[in-house]
């Protein structure tokens, strides 16, 4: 049988999927063990016990200073920034994406500037951003928004253009105005596709959040990583990174579920 026709069954699938994870953990254990054997105080690849300790310390012991559980307050602070920013980007992208994709006038006006602007590396313009926007949560949200929104707009505009022209014609023959088409034909078809696009931007959003928190913050997951980085406290950093990855993964999963539940028509229409 050809390799491409061999479909592993459930047990095998599970075993195969677990394999690379096991390999990664194994490689870490060996590397860590070797370094620790050489220098028991090595901080770079801490043992699992050390990380567990650090995790317990950060997540399960209240901070004497504030009485907070640091990891949770960091998470809360980062997540609220991240989600606010993503909500704003999403909204902007939806509006401008539909405008650019649907209206030739808007497309010629904003298309080029969005294309060029999406190439600007936002991190290099941080100082200007911070001056214009201040340093509070506003600036951090703005950085994430700027970092993610342009690509989202382009994506949305492309997907609006992907709508078969037959549908737009059909809507017009049913007497729809431009506004009605945007509202009742384009918007609802874009929502599930927007979820796909937003899923792709979760990674960049975390990146910009961490970058923003590294500059000015007093809580947040990125802030903590940055703070303890000077001490090379990998026993804190690694659990934090795993935690961020898990959060990102859960957000992705959540969006996928949302897409499936909220837009039952989409799975069928996509494969058609």
């Amino acid at each position, binding site marked *: 049988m050809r390799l491409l026709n061999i479909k592993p069954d459930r047990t095998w699938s599970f075993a195969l999927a677990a394999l690379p994870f096991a390999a990664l953990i194994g490689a870490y254990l060996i590397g860590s063990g070797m370094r620790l054997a050489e220098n028991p105080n090595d901080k770079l690849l801490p043992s699992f016990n050390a990380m567990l300790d650090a995790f317990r310390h950060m997540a399960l012991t209240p901070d004497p*200073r504030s009485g907070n559980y640091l990891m949770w307050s960091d998470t809360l602070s980062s997540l609220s920034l991240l989600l606010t920013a993503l909500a704003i980007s999403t909204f902007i992208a939806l509006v401008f994406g539909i405008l650019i994709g649907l209206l030739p006038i808007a497309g010629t006006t904003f298309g080029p500037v969005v294309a060029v602007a999406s190439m600007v590396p936002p991190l290099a313009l941080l100082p200007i951003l911070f001056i214009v926007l201040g340093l509070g949560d506003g600036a951090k949200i703005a950085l994430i928004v700027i970092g993610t929104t342009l690509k989202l707009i382009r994506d949305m505009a492309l997907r609006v253009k992907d709508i078969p022209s037959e549908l737009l014609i059909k809507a017009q023959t049913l007497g729809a105005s431009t506004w009605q088409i945007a509202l009742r034909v384009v918007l609802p078809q874009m929502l599930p596709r927007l979820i796909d696009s937003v899923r792709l931007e979760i990674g960049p959003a975390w990146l910009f959040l961490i970058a923003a928190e590294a500059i000015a*913050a007093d809580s947040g997951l990125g802030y903590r990583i940055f703070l303890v980085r000077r001490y090379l406290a990998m026993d804190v950093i690694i659990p934090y990174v795993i935690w961020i990855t898990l959060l990102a993964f859960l957000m992705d999963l959540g969006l996928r579920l949302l897409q499936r539940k909220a837009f039952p028509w989409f799975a069928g229409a996509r494969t058609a």
Partner: protein
Amino acid sequence: QGAEKKDFKVAWSIYVGWMPWGYAADSGIVKKWADKYGITIEVKQFNDYVESINQYTAGAFDAVTLTNMDGLSIPAAGGVDTTAVIVGDFSNGNDAVILKGKDKLADIKGQTVNLVEFSVSHYLLARALESVKLAEKDVKVVNTSDADMASAYKTPDVTAVVTWKPIVSTILESPDARKVFDSSQIPGEIIDLMVANTTVLKDNPSFGKALVGIWYDTMKALASDAAAKEHMAKASGTDVAGFDEMLGTTKMFYEPKDALAFVNGAELKTTTERVSTFLFDKALLGKDAKSAGAIGVEFPDKSVFGDKANVKLRYDATFMQAAADGKL
């Protein structure tokens, strides 16, 4: 600018000599003094030191914590007339040159040195090289972010670094790390300041007074209150022992009179000249600078180093004097 105002913003970044500002903000000392003068002071923590200075230079903040050298090269060279209100401490071993597996500073010759370019580390390196009759061309400098210095040291490529605490302490935990030069060998040259915009300060002297008031109240707490020290230690990401270790290599001026003695001393003028020369060599005094004295620096006795028509950095002792005299 040029008008009286009520709301002020102060930026500080995480460094042993400036940790009191975080405590002052959290413990209510800031509010106490601001209320006393009928103003508000927002104290903002930065993790990125350079960004805090940039923000101050761009006018987003009225005061900022920085070193004497960065005060000269960033706000002053950027045309922002800046006054040092508080001389908080100087580095007395906080900054160090570290070699991997080599014991003598002279061994640095020919090596690649990782440091934050144009920072006090760069200055320290210049001074260190001078002390063994070497020049910067005898080494190769690679700009390395301070945040990644500790991990960079762990890589085989890196054999020499110049950096500051707490990174120094972290690096020295490696068995092969040797401290071959530190700032205690050039005492008083790396000075940690709280500076404010001169115009703002002139129009609002009470802001300066409040800053000084806050500072010396906090100094008292640091000296006597274990909880305060613990707070600062935590905020800098370490524990009390680690924090004490850093304090040990920092010459803190707990009393205003100590700071006054230092700022009025003659040493400050020599230091300023050295630093200006270093910055001029690196073309950091602005592209139009013709000499090391292109930017004038005024001292408490009103004497000026460099261009008297272009004084942009001023050491002003009047506020600390007021604190010493109990006249706040």
